[in-house]
């Protein structure tokens, strides 16, 4: 007696959207990484000045009359974590075939992204930095503005993913996985920016 031959299992397909999203995220990470590297280089080469204690010498990089809104910046950082959790919840719900929770998770991800955009604008208004005087101001607005553009792209991604689910393509998990990957990547980029620009200053 011969054992029946096993039929071949389904071929594992590599998701085009997932791969493309990974490459775009890598490109965006290189963009932010290079800008942060130049920021650190300029800061390291900045002249020194006497600190407010009147004794120690510090880099004359961030002007003494400029206060970084640290509460707003840290709130921004925490909000990113919420967006990541929601994006992953969308993947989890879609795998379970739970369309209503998938839509809810994507909706919250998108609105969390909009809240991040709102918080960034509020931070710009609070910091009250005029883009005219020195390298710090130029580089601050360049790097946070670029980060803002990346955040907006993530919000648009959430909108597109939600629109696809609403249109009945919720079974296409690849887009949701790619969407979650992008939010993780954007959060990683902002974490680096938050530490260098808002914490280390």
């Amino acid at each position: 007696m011969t054992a029946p031959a096993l039929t071949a299992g389904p071929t594992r397909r590599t998701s085009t959207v997932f791969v493309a999203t990974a490459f775009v995220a890598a490109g965006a990470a290189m963009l932010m990484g290079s800008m942060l590297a130049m920021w650190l280089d300029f800061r390291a080469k900045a002249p020194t000045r006497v600190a407010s204690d009147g004794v120690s010498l510090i880099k004359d990089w961030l002007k003494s009359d400029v206060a970084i809104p640290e509460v707003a910046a840290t709130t921004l950082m925490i909000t990113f974590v919420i967006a990541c959790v929601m994006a992953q919840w969308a993947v989890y719900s879609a795998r379970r075939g739970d369309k209503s929770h998938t839509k809810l998770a994507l909706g919250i991800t998108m609105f969390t992204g909009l809240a991040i955009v709102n918080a960034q604008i509020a931070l710009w208004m609070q910091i009250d930095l005029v883009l005219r005087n020195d390298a710090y101001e130029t580089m601050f607005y360049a790097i946070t503005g670029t980060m803002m553009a990346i955040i907006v792209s993530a919000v648009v991604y959430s909108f597109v993913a939600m629109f696809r689910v609403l249109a009945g393509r919720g079974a296409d998990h690849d887009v949701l996985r790619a969407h979650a990957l992008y939010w993780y990547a954007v959060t990683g980029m902002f974490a680096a920016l938050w530490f260098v620009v808002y914490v280390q200053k």
Partner: protein
Amino acid sequence: MSISVSGAPSGATPSSLATSPLQRLAGWLTTIHHATLGGSLLVASAVWLVVVTAIGVVLGFERFDAGGTVVDADAFVQLFSLHRFALVFGVAGPAMLGLVVWSLPAQLQAANLSLPRLAAFGWWSWLVGSAIVLVSYLGNGGPGGGDAQYVETYLLGLGIVLVALAVIAVSVAATVLTRRNGRALGEVPVGAFAALVTALGLVLTLPVALGTIIYVWLDYVNARVAFGGADLIDAWLGWVVREPHTLLVVVPALGVLADAVVRTAKGRQPLRGVVLVGVGISLSVVASSVTQQAHVFALGDTPTGTLQSFVPYALFNLVPLLAPLIVVLLSLLALRAGTPGISGAFVAAFLGVGMIFTGLVGSAAMHLDALGLVGTVFGEATLVYVVYGAVLTAIGGITLHAGSVTGRALPDGKVVLIALLGFVATVLASLPHYVAGFLDQPANAATGFDDSGLVGVTNLIVALGHGLMLLTVLGFIGLVIASRRGEVLSDRYRLVQPA
């Protein structure tokens, strides 16, 4: 059994199937077919090559007599800058990516690219961006430009070009990784593997240049205290149009050579894994590029100081040399292992990669402080070597894949003649400036240097070389057009697989 490497055309119909001129135009404008997109990039790079050779001829004659000037003296900085932009982002980038887009689905036996709309977006964006850059130069913009608005326009155009090439690279990478028809990555043709390497390299390095553009632009329109205005644009962004970064752009050339030799010799590639490693070594350039600076080796006061200078020099200038060297040596081994022969694709690709290697060796030599070549025309020669080498390899690549992509092979003997003409053109357009570099002819200057003796003559020969390269490309274009109208030739590069 013999099979064609070409996949069946996809639902994305090539525009050539449309009938009336208007339909064909509409088809071209909206196409997402890889052959049309890749062909468009190749044709556009040929148009930019005409610009490059014209500038090369003008600069050659200008520098023949350093006393008199035909071009306005204020325009020289921009003319040299335009020459570099056109060589890298007008010719090498679109030619290499165009070749990849055009031939990759056929290499992978896929119907079309992955994300073809993204690739189409990249092509149109590149076209618009490169046109904006050209217009900005004409309006006294660009690096060193005097018109503030056109300088901003230049930065905008350059940014669009970089994003466009990165977008095409994403489509290429996704195609190689997701359309392999069940094959492992190590089993795909070397050309497809090289396409993945160049795509990865461009996705990782072009955003670095984009970040610098954002900084430079915001500084330029505001304080101009951090990045120095228009005069220093090249100082901040020059690395992207210099060696070794240009190697990342021309990596597909290595794949063309490796595939051409196997199909010419009708054998197998010995040490195929080593060839793939050789191509992959090109990615070491990423580490060099992200530092955004040249790494010159200078003898230090102490052995430790010397070592501190040598390690980054070797890592960023010598290691990349291994990529073309390994591929060239193993391609010769493959030719010996199979049925030795000569083909148009092999000759063009072999000479092209040889020129690229020569350019990279020159770049490594230029970064030796003791030779004193930094700031001379030596750097211009290395770039011309690499880019014209890429052009020769593109000719080889088109010859290699023409049969499988279009169904019409090119006449091999004529391609050999064109490749030899291109080889002579490349050597004439570059080698004399290697000599002039040792004679201290300054870079980016057409006046104010000693043009007596050999220096003046070298510039005249360089102008001749650029003119010959124009003839080479025009000859090849004529050959392609003639082959489309003439009788169908048998494709000697047709992939034959055992049953």
